[in-house]
Protein backbone atom coordinates (compact mmCIF):
# COMPACT_ATOMS: atom_id res chain seq x y z
CA UNK A 1 0.00 0.00 0.00
CA UNK A 2 3.05 2.19 0.24
CA UNK A 3 4.72 3.21 -2.97
CA UNK A 4 8.09 4.06 -1.48
CA UNK A 5 9.87 3.44 1.77
CA UNK A 6 11.66 6.75 1.71
CA UNK A 7 10.06 9.98 2.82
CA UNK A 8 11.83 13.28 2.53
CA UNK A 9 10.71 16.43 4.33
CA UNK A 10 12.55 19.44 3.00
CA UNK A 11 10.79 22.31 4.69
CA UNK A 12 10.10 20.77 8.04
CA UNK A 13 13.63 19.44 8.36
CA UNK A 14 14.97 22.88 7.49
CA UNK A 15 12.66 24.51 9.99
CA UNK A 16 13.77 22.27 12.79
CA UNK A 17 17.41 22.71 11.91
CA UNK A 18 16.96 26.46 11.89
CA UNK A 19 16.04 26.43 15.55
CA UNK A 20 19.68 25.80 16.34
CA UNK A 21 21.21 28.36 14.02
CA UNK A 22 18.76 31.12 13.27
CA UNK A 23 21.09 33.73 11.82
CA UNK A 24 22.78 31.44 9.37
CA UNK A 25 19.53 29.88 8.36
CA UNK A 26 17.96 33.22 7.71
CA UNK A 27 20.77 34.33 5.46
CA UNK A 28 20.38 31.33 3.23
CA UNK A 29 16.67 30.76 3.48
CA UNK A 30 15.50 32.53 0.37
CA UNK A 31 15.20 29.54 -1.90
CA UNK A 32 12.27 28.07 -0.10
CA UNK A 33 10.97 31.40 1.16
CA UNK A 34 11.06 30.07 4.66
CA UNK A 35 10.10 33.18 6.51
CA UNK A 36 11.39 33.06 9.99
CA UNK A 37 7.92 33.25 11.44
CA UNK A 38 7.05 30.03 9.70
CA UNK A 39 9.39 28.15 11.96
CA UNK A 40 7.99 29.68 15.08
CA UNK A 41 5.50 27.14 16.26
CA UNK A 42 7.73 24.16 15.63
CA UNK A 43 8.20 24.02 19.33
CA UNK A 44 6.88 21.65 21.89
CA UNK A 45 3.27 22.04 22.82
CA UNK A 46 4.16 22.32 26.47
CA UNK A 47 7.37 23.70 27.78
CA UNK A 48 8.88 22.99 31.10
CA UNK A 49 11.40 25.79 30.64
CA UNK A 50 12.52 28.29 28.07
CA UNK A 51 14.82 26.56 25.64
CA UNK A 52 16.28 27.58 22.33
CA UNK A 53 13.20 26.58 20.42
CA UNK A 54 10.90 28.67 22.57
CA UNK A 55 13.14 31.71 22.28
CA UNK A 56 13.06 31.20 18.55
CA UNK A 57 9.30 31.16 18.67
CA UNK A 58 9.05 34.45 20.48
CA UNK A 59 11.76 36.10 18.42
CA UNK A 60 9.86 35.70 15.20
CA UNK A 61 6.37 36.02 16.46
CA UNK A 62 4.30 38.54 14.56
CA UNK A 63 3.08 41.21 16.87
CA UNK A 64 -0.06 42.25 15.18
CA UNK A 65 -3.31 40.87 16.48
CA UNK A 66 -6.91 41.57 17.23
CA UNK A 67 -7.47 43.94 20.09
CA UNK A 68 -10.90 45.17 21.06
CA UNK A 69 -12.30 43.88 17.83
CA UNK A 70 -9.89 45.62 15.48
CA UNK A 71 -6.72 44.42 13.83
CA UNK A 72 -3.41 46.07 14.44
CA UNK A 73 -0.09 44.91 13.15
CA UNK A 74 3.28 46.43 13.75
CA UNK A 75 5.65 43.85 12.30
CA UNK A 76 7.83 41.13 13.76
CA UNK A 77 9.96 41.13 16.84
CA UNK A 78 13.01 40.02 14.92
CA UNK A 79 15.28 42.28 12.94
CA UNK A 80 16.36 39.25 10.94
CA UNK A 81 13.24 39.35 8.83
CA UNK A 82 13.02 40.93 5.44
CA UNK A 83 12.83 44.66 5.98
CA UNK A 84 9.71 45.07 3.89
CA UNK A 85 8.01 42.48 6.01
CA UNK A 86 9.00 44.30 9.13
CA UNK A 87 8.06 47.81 8.20
CA UNK A 88 4.58 47.53 9.63
CA UNK A 89 2.00 50.23 9.06
CA UNK A 90 3.32 53.15 7.06
CA UNK A 91 2.57 55.16 3.95
CA UNK A 92 4.05 52.55 1.66
CA UNK A 93 1.60 49.99 2.90
CA UNK A 94 -1.25 52.41 3.28
CA UNK A 95 -3.38 50.98 0.48
CA UNK A 96 -3.40 47.48 1.88
CA UNK A 97 -5.86 46.64 4.62
CA UNK A 98 -5.24 43.57 6.75
CA UNK A 99 -7.21 41.62 9.28
CA UNK A 100 -10.24 41.00 7.10
CA UNK A 101 -9.90 37.27 7.62
CA UNK A 102 -9.06 35.34 10.73
CA UNK A 103 -11.67 36.04 13.34
CA UNK A 104 -13.10 32.57 13.05
CA UNK A 105 -11.60 30.82 16.01
CA UNK A 106 -8.61 29.19 17.59
CA UNK A 107 -8.15 26.13 15.40
CA UNK A 108 -9.95 24.47 12.52
CA UNK A 109 -9.29 21.01 13.89
CA UNK A 110 -11.67 18.45 12.43
Amino acid at each position, binding site marked *: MKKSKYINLVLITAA*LASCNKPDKEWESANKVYMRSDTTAPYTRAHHSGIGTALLWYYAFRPYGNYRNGS*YGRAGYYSRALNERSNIGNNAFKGAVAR*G*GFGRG*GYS*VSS
Partner: protein
Amino acid sequence: MIRKTITPRNNWQSAVEKLGFGFHTTNVPYWDESVYYELSMTEVHQIEKATADLWDLCLGAVQHVMDNKLYHLFNIPDWLIPYIEKTWTEDHPAIYGRFDLCVKDGKVKLLEFNADTPTSLYESAIVQWFWLQDFDKSKDQFNSVHEKLVDYWKYLKNYLHPAPLHFTCLKETLEDLTNVEYMRDCAIQAGFETKLIFVDDIGWDEHSRQFMDMEDQPIKNIFKLYPWEWMVTEEFGKNILLDVNRTFWIEPSWKMLLANKAILPILWELYPDHPNLLAAYFDSALLTNYVKKPILGREGANIEIVKEGELLQFTEGEYGKEGYVFQELLELPNFDGKYPMIGSWVVGQEPAGIGIREANSLITDNVSRYVPHLIK
Protein backbone atom coordinates in the same frame (compact mmCIF):
# COMPACT_ATOMS: atom_id res chain seq x y z
CA MET B 1 -9.76 -5.07 12.81
CA ILE B 2 -7.88 -6.02 15.96
CA ARG B 3 -6.79 -3.70 18.75
CA LYS B 4 -3.37 -4.48 20.21
CA THR B 5 -1.81 -3.02 23.32
CA ILE B 6 1.96 -2.50 23.30
CA THR B 7 4.69 -0.66 25.14
CA PRO B 8 5.43 2.74 23.59
CA ARG B 9 8.94 3.49 22.39
CA ASN B 10 11.14 4.67 25.26
CA ASN B 11 11.87 7.91 23.49
CA TRP B 12 8.57 8.34 21.73
CA GLN B 13 8.18 12.01 22.64
CA SER B 14 11.53 12.97 21.18
CA ALA B 15 11.04 10.59 18.26
CA VAL B 16 7.87 12.35 17.16
CA GLU B 17 9.21 15.80 17.96
CA LYS B 18 12.14 15.17 15.65
CA LEU B 19 9.56 14.86 12.91
CA GLY B 20 8.16 18.28 13.78
CA PHE B 21 5.14 16.83 15.56
CA GLY B 22 4.83 19.13 18.53
CA PHE B 23 1.19 18.68 19.57
CA HIS B 24 1.42 15.05 20.60
CA THR B 25 0.16 15.95 24.06
CA THR B 26 -2.16 18.71 25.18
CA ASN B 27 -3.85 18.52 28.55
CA VAL B 28 -4.57 14.91 27.57
CA PRO B 29 -2.53 12.58 25.33
CA TYR B 30 -3.28 12.98 21.65
CA TRP B 31 -0.73 10.72 19.96
CA ASP B 32 -1.10 7.29 21.59
CA GLU B 33 1.30 4.53 20.60
CA SER B 34 0.47 2.33 23.57
CA VAL B 35 -2.01 0.74 21.20
CA TYR B 36 -2.31 0.07 17.49
CA TYR B 37 -4.90 -1.43 15.19
CA GLU B 38 -4.19 -4.33 12.91
CA LEU B 39 -6.25 -4.47 9.73
CA SER B 40 -6.54 -7.34 7.32
CA MET B 41 -5.82 -6.71 3.65
CA THR B 42 -9.48 -7.49 2.99
CA GLU B 43 -10.52 -4.68 5.32
CA VAL B 44 -8.05 -2.32 3.68
CA HIS B 45 -9.44 -3.12 0.25
CA GLN B 46 -12.97 -2.57 1.55
CA ILE B 47 -12.04 0.83 2.91
CA GLU B 48 -10.18 1.72 -0.25
CA LYS B 49 -13.14 0.81 -2.45
CA ALA B 50 -15.61 2.58 -0.18
CA THR B 51 -13.49 5.72 -0.29
CA ALA B 52 -13.33 5.70 -4.08
CA ASP B 53 -17.07 5.03 -4.34
CA LEU B 54 -17.97 7.71 -1.81
CA TRP B 55 -15.88 10.24 -3.67
CA ASP B 56 -17.85 9.49 -6.84
CA LEU B 57 -21.14 9.76 -4.97
CA CYS B 58 -20.07 13.10 -3.54
CA LEU B 59 -19.28 14.56 -6.94
CA GLY B 60 -22.72 13.47 -8.12
CA ALA B 61 -24.29 15.08 -5.06
CA VAL B 62 -22.56 18.41 -5.74
CA GLN B 63 -23.96 18.46 -9.26
CA HIS B 64 -27.41 17.58 -7.90
CA VAL B 65 -27.32 20.45 -5.39
CA MET B 66 -26.38 22.88 -8.14
CA ASP B 67 -28.90 21.59 -10.67
CA ASN B 68 -31.72 21.83 -8.14
CA LYS B 69 -30.56 25.01 -6.36
CA LEU B 70 -30.62 23.42 -2.91
CA TYR B 71 -28.25 25.95 -1.36
CA HIS B 72 -30.78 27.03 1.26
CA LEU B 73 -30.35 23.63 2.93
CA PHE B 74 -26.66 24.45 3.42
CA ASN B 75 -27.15 27.95 4.81
CA ILE B 76 -25.05 29.38 1.98
CA PRO B 77 -25.52 33.10 1.28
CA ASP B 78 -27.09 33.98 -2.07
CA TRP B 79 -24.26 36.23 -3.14
CA LEU B 80 -21.80 33.34 -2.98
CA ILE B 81 -23.75 30.91 -5.17
CA PRO B 82 -22.51 32.11 -8.60
CA TYR B 83 -18.94 31.92 -7.33
CA ILE B 84 -19.40 28.39 -5.98
CA GLU B 85 -20.87 27.29 -9.29
CA LYS B 86 -18.07 28.96 -11.17
CA THR B 87 -15.37 27.15 -9.21
CA TRP B 88 -17.19 23.90 -9.97
CA THR B 89 -17.74 24.43 -13.69
CA GLU B 90 -14.20 25.76 -14.11
CA ASP B 91 -12.90 22.80 -12.13
CA HIS B 92 -10.83 24.83 -9.68
CA PRO B 93 -8.14 22.65 -8.15
CA ALA B 94 -8.93 20.55 -5.09
CA ILE B 95 -6.36 18.35 -3.50
CA TYR B 96 -7.69 16.39 -0.54
CA GLY B 97 -10.41 15.38 1.88
CA ARG B 98 -11.01 12.92 4.71
CA PHE B 99 -14.00 10.61 5.00
CA ASP B 100 -14.83 9.62 8.56
CA LEU B 101 -15.96 6.01 8.48
CA CYS B 102 -17.37 3.39 10.77
CA VAL B 103 -15.81 0.02 9.93
CA LYS B 104 -17.72 -2.76 11.63
CA ASP B 105 -18.99 -6.27 10.94
CA GLY B 106 -17.63 -6.27 7.42
CA LYS B 107 -19.34 -2.98 6.58
CA VAL B 108 -17.88 0.44 5.82
CA LYS B 109 -20.27 3.35 6.46
CA LEU B 110 -19.82 7.08 5.96
CA LEU B 111 -20.28 9.18 9.08
CA GLU B 112 -19.24 12.48 7.52
CA PHE B 113 -16.84 14.05 5.05
CA ASN B 114 -14.21 16.60 6.08
CA ALA B 115 -13.90 18.05 2.61
CA ASP B 116 -12.67 21.58 3.23
CA THR B 117 -10.32 21.69 6.22
CA PRO B 118 -9.42 18.14 7.25
CA THR B 119 -6.73 17.90 9.90
CA SER B 120 -4.56 15.05 11.21
CA LEU B 121 -2.84 15.00 7.82
CA TYR B 122 0.67 15.02 9.25
CA GLU B 123 -0.07 12.29 11.77
CA SER B 124 -1.52 10.15 9.00
CA ALA B 125 1.12 10.71 6.34
CA ILE B 126 4.28 10.93 8.42
CA VAL B 127 4.09 10.26 12.16
CA GLN B 128 2.40 6.88 12.02
CA TRP B 129 4.60 5.80 9.10
CA PHE B 130 7.81 6.51 11.03
CA TRP B 131 6.28 4.77 14.05
CA LEU B 132 5.91 1.66 11.90
CA GLN B 133 9.55 1.89 10.80
CA ASP B 134 10.56 1.67 14.46
CA PHE B 135 7.93 -0.84 15.50
CA ASP B 136 8.07 -3.38 12.67
CA LYS B 137 9.64 -2.48 9.36
CA SER B 138 8.50 -5.73 7.83
CA LYS B 139 4.85 -4.67 8.06
CA ASP B 140 2.97 -2.36 5.74
CA GLN B 141 0.44 0.39 6.31
CA PHE B 142 -2.48 1.72 4.29
CA ASN B 143 -0.66 4.93 3.66
CA SER B 144 0.50 6.55 0.46
CA VAL B 145 -0.70 9.98 1.54
CA HIS B 146 2.71 11.61 1.22
CA GLU B 147 3.53 10.26 -2.23
CA LYS B 148 0.09 11.13 -3.54
CA LEU B 149 0.24 14.67 -2.18
CA VAL B 150 3.58 15.35 -3.86
CA ASP B 151 2.39 13.77 -7.11
CA TYR B 152 -0.87 15.69 -7.12
CA TRP B 153 0.79 19.01 -6.48
CA LYS B 154 3.01 18.25 -9.49
CA TYR B 155 -0.11 17.55 -11.53
CA LEU B 156 -1.77 20.79 -10.40
CA LYS B 157 1.22 22.91 -11.33
CA ASN B 158 -0.07 23.38 -14.88
CA TYR B 159 -3.52 24.40 -13.66
CA LEU B 160 -2.54 27.14 -11.24
CA HIS B 161 -1.55 30.70 -12.01
CA PRO B 162 2.16 31.17 -12.81
CA ALA B 163 2.85 32.76 -9.44
CA PRO B 164 3.98 31.66 -5.97
CA LEU B 165 1.72 29.33 -4.06
CA HIS B 166 0.77 30.79 -0.69
CA PHE B 167 -0.26 28.78 2.36
CA THR B 168 -2.33 30.13 5.20
CA CYS B 169 -3.83 29.21 8.56
CA LEU B 170 -4.61 30.81 11.87
CA LYS B 171 -1.88 32.11 14.15
CA GLU B 172 -1.08 30.54 17.47
CA THR B 173 -2.28 27.05 16.65
CA LEU B 174 0.49 24.54 16.35
CA GLU B 175 -1.81 21.84 15.03
CA ASP B 176 -3.07 23.92 12.12
CA LEU B 177 0.38 25.25 11.31
CA THR B 178 1.89 21.77 11.29
CA ASN B 179 -0.76 20.57 8.86
CA VAL B 180 -0.19 23.58 6.61
CA GLU B 181 3.59 23.43 6.75
CA TYR B 182 3.48 19.77 5.91
CA MET B 183 1.29 20.49 2.91
CA ARG B 184 3.71 23.24 1.92
CA ASP B 185 6.56 20.79 2.23
CA CYS B 186 4.84 18.54 -0.29
CA ALA B 187 4.27 21.47 -2.66
CA ILE B 188 7.93 22.49 -2.43
CA GLN B 189 8.92 18.96 -3.34
CA ALA B 190 6.56 19.22 -6.30
CA GLY B 191 8.51 22.25 -7.52
CA PHE B 192 6.41 25.16 -6.27
CA GLU B 193 7.74 28.45 -5.01
CA THR B 194 5.82 28.84 -1.75
CA LYS B 195 5.16 31.39 0.96
CA LEU B 196 3.43 31.18 4.30
CA ILE B 197 1.13 33.94 5.47
CA PHE B 198 -1.13 33.78 8.49
CA VAL B 199 -4.75 34.25 7.60
CA ASP B 200 -5.22 37.48 9.51
CA ASP B 201 -2.14 38.94 7.81
CA ILE B 202 -3.67 38.53 4.35
CA GLY B 203 -4.02 41.98 2.87
CA TRP B 204 -6.57 43.51 0.52
CA ASP B 205 -5.58 46.35 -1.77
CA GLU B 206 -8.77 48.24 -2.42
CA HIS B 207 -7.19 50.26 -5.20
CA SER B 208 -5.87 47.38 -7.30
CA ARG B 209 -8.43 44.87 -6.00
CA GLN B 210 -5.93 42.18 -5.12
CA PHE B 211 -5.19 40.07 -2.10
CA MET B 212 -1.66 40.82 -0.94
CA ASP B 213 0.97 39.01 1.06
CA MET B 214 3.29 40.48 3.67
CA GLU B 215 5.73 41.68 1.02
CA ASP B 216 2.83 43.41 -0.73
CA GLN B 217 2.99 40.92 -3.56
CA PRO B 218 -0.31 39.69 -5.01
CA ILE B 219 -1.69 36.36 -3.87
CA LYS B 220 -2.80 34.37 -6.91
CA ASN B 221 -2.80 30.81 -5.60
CA ILE B 222 -3.43 30.01 -1.97
CA PHE B 223 -3.91 26.84 0.03
CA LYS B 224 -5.97 27.65 3.11
CA LEU B 225 -6.59 25.68 6.26
CA TYR B 226 -9.46 27.96 7.15
CA PRO B 227 -13.10 27.09 6.51
CA TRP B 228 -15.11 28.71 3.78
CA GLU B 229 -18.05 29.20 6.12
CA TRP B 230 -15.88 31.45 8.26
CA MET B 231 -14.26 33.27 5.34
CA VAL B 232 -17.52 34.28 3.71
CA THR B 233 -18.88 35.88 6.86
CA GLU B 234 -15.77 37.97 7.43
CA GLU B 235 -14.86 41.44 6.22
CA PHE B 236 -12.81 40.28 3.22
CA GLY B 237 -15.22 37.53 2.19
CA LYS B 238 -17.00 39.42 -0.56
CA ASN B 239 -13.67 40.69 -1.90
CA ILE B 240 -13.15 37.21 -3.34
CA LEU B 241 -15.69 38.18 -5.99
CA LEU B 242 -13.87 41.45 -6.73
CA ASP B 243 -10.39 39.96 -6.95
CA VAL B 244 -8.86 40.84 -10.34
CA ASN B 245 -6.47 37.90 -10.13
CA ARG B 246 -9.28 35.36 -9.79
CA THR B 247 -7.14 33.73 -7.17
CA PHE B 248 -7.28 29.97 -6.82
CA TRP B 249 -8.32 29.21 -3.25
CA ILE B 250 -7.57 25.60 -2.35
CA GLU B 251 -9.74 23.82 -1.35
CA PRO B 252 -12.15 25.54 -3.75
CA SER B 253 -15.50 26.95 -2.66
CA TRP B 254 -17.56 24.09 -4.13
CA LYS B 255 -16.12 21.95 -1.35
CA MET B 256 -18.38 23.94 1.00
CA LEU B 257 -21.20 21.67 -0.11
CA LEU B 258 -19.37 18.47 0.78
CA ALA B 259 -17.98 19.77 4.07
CA ASN B 260 -21.50 20.63 5.18
CA LYS B 261 -23.42 17.80 6.84
CA ALA B 262 -26.48 18.77 4.83
CA ILE B 263 -24.83 16.67 2.14
CA LEU B 264 -25.66 13.51 4.13
CA PRO B 265 -29.45 13.60 3.53
CA ILE B 266 -28.79 14.61 -0.07
CA LEU B 267 -26.55 11.58 -0.57
CA TRP B 268 -29.15 9.29 1.00
CA GLU B 269 -31.91 10.71 -1.17
CA LEU B 270 -29.81 10.25 -4.31
CA TYR B 271 -28.39 6.84 -3.45
CA PRO B 272 -30.81 5.15 -1.02
CA ASP B 273 -29.57 1.90 0.48
CA HIS B 274 -26.07 2.38 -0.90
CA PRO B 275 -23.85 0.00 1.12
CA ASN B 276 -21.53 2.78 2.29
CA LEU B 277 -24.23 5.21 3.39
CA LEU B 278 -26.39 5.52 6.47
CA ALA B 279 -29.95 6.80 6.25
CA ALA B 280 -30.00 10.55 6.84
CA TYR B 281 -32.73 13.19 6.84
CA PHE B 282 -33.42 16.78 7.70
CA ASP B 283 -35.83 15.70 10.42
CA SER B 284 -35.86 12.83 12.87
CA ALA B 285 -39.37 11.50 12.18
CA LEU B 286 -38.24 8.54 10.09
CA LEU B 287 -35.58 7.33 12.52
CA THR B 288 -35.81 5.55 15.87
CA ASN B 289 -32.11 5.46 16.62
CA TYR B 290 -30.20 8.40 15.29
CA VAL B 291 -27.41 10.93 15.68
CA LYS B 292 -28.34 14.60 15.54
CA LYS B 293 -25.50 16.64 14.01
CA PRO B 294 -25.19 20.38 13.32
CA ILE B 295 -24.67 21.00 9.61
CA LEU B 296 -21.65 23.14 10.43
CA GLY B 297 -20.16 21.48 13.50
CA ARG B 298 -16.58 20.57 14.28
CA GLU B 299 -14.82 17.98 16.41
CA GLY B 300 -17.89 16.19 17.67
CA ALA B 301 -19.47 19.26 19.27
CA ASN B 302 -23.24 19.65 19.70
CA ILE B 303 -23.94 15.99 18.90
CA GLU B 304 -26.87 14.06 20.34
CA ILE B 305 -27.24 10.29 20.15
CA VAL B 306 -30.81 9.08 20.55
CA LYS B 307 -31.67 5.41 20.96
CA GLU B 308 -35.23 4.15 21.32
CA GLY B 309 -36.37 7.66 22.12
CA GLU B 310 -33.83 8.13 24.91
CA LEU B 311 -30.90 10.55 24.81
CA LEU B 312 -27.94 8.18 25.05
CA GLN B 313 -25.07 10.65 24.79
CA PHE B 314 -24.57 14.28 23.93
CA THR B 315 -21.84 16.88 23.66
CA GLU B 316 -21.99 20.60 24.17
CA GLY B 317 -20.60 23.31 21.96
CA GLU B 318 -21.27 26.47 20.05
CA TYR B 319 -22.62 25.06 16.79
CA GLY B 320 -26.12 24.41 15.54
CA LYS B 321 -27.65 27.77 14.70
CA GLU B 322 -27.47 26.91 10.97
CA GLY B 323 -29.54 23.75 11.43
CA TYR B 324 -29.16 20.00 11.99
CA VAL B 325 -29.31 16.70 10.17
CA PHE B 326 -30.34 13.33 11.57
CA GLN B 327 -28.34 10.26 10.67
CA GLU B 328 -29.18 6.63 11.41
CA LEU B 329 -27.22 5.46 14.45
CA LEU B 330 -24.46 2.98 13.79
CA GLU B 331 -22.39 2.58 16.92
CA LEU B 332 -18.63 2.54 16.42
CA PRO B 333 -17.00 -0.83 17.19
CA ASN B 334 -16.39 -1.28 20.89
CA PHE B 335 -12.96 -2.56 21.99
CA ASP B 336 -13.32 -2.68 25.78
CA GLY B 337 -14.72 0.82 25.93
CA LYS B 338 -12.49 2.22 23.18
CA TYR B 339 -14.20 3.30 19.97
CA PRO B 340 -12.10 3.70 16.81
CA MET B 341 -13.18 5.80 13.86
CA ILE B 342 -11.38 5.51 10.53
CA GLY B 343 -10.37 8.69 8.73
CA SER B 344 -9.88 7.73 5.10
CA TRP B 345 -7.96 10.18 2.94
CA VAL B 346 -8.75 10.98 -0.63
CA VAL B 347 -5.91 12.79 -2.39
CA GLY B 348 -6.30 13.97 -5.95
CA GLN B 349 -9.45 11.88 -6.51
CA GLU B 350 -7.92 8.67 -5.17
CA PRO B 351 -7.97 6.80 -1.85
CA ALA B 352 -4.63 7.45 -0.20
CA GLY B 353 -4.60 5.91 3.27
CA ILE B 354 -6.13 6.05 6.71
CA GLY B 355 -5.70 7.42 10.18
CA ILE B 356 -7.52 6.17 13.27
CA ARG B 357 -8.99 8.30 16.03
CA GLU B 358 -9.93 6.45 19.19
CA ALA B 359 -12.40 7.82 21.73
CA ASN B 360 -13.72 6.66 25.09
CA SER B 361 -17.30 7.13 23.93
CA LEU B 362 -19.38 6.79 20.79
CA ILE B 363 -18.69 10.42 19.94
CA THR B 364 -15.23 11.12 18.51
CA ASP B 365 -14.46 14.51 20.00
CA ASN B 366 -11.54 16.85 20.52
CA VAL B 367 -9.99 14.70 23.25
CA SER B 368 -9.93 11.52 21.22
CA ARG B 369 -6.52 10.01 20.54
CA TYR B 370 -4.68 9.37 17.31
CA VAL B 371 -3.46 5.77 17.18
CA PRO B 372 -1.33 4.12 14.49
CA HIS B 373 -2.18 1.05 12.42
CA LEU B 374 -0.57 -1.65 10.35
CA ILE B 375 -1.69 -4.30 7.90
CA LYS B 376 -1.58 -7.87 9.15
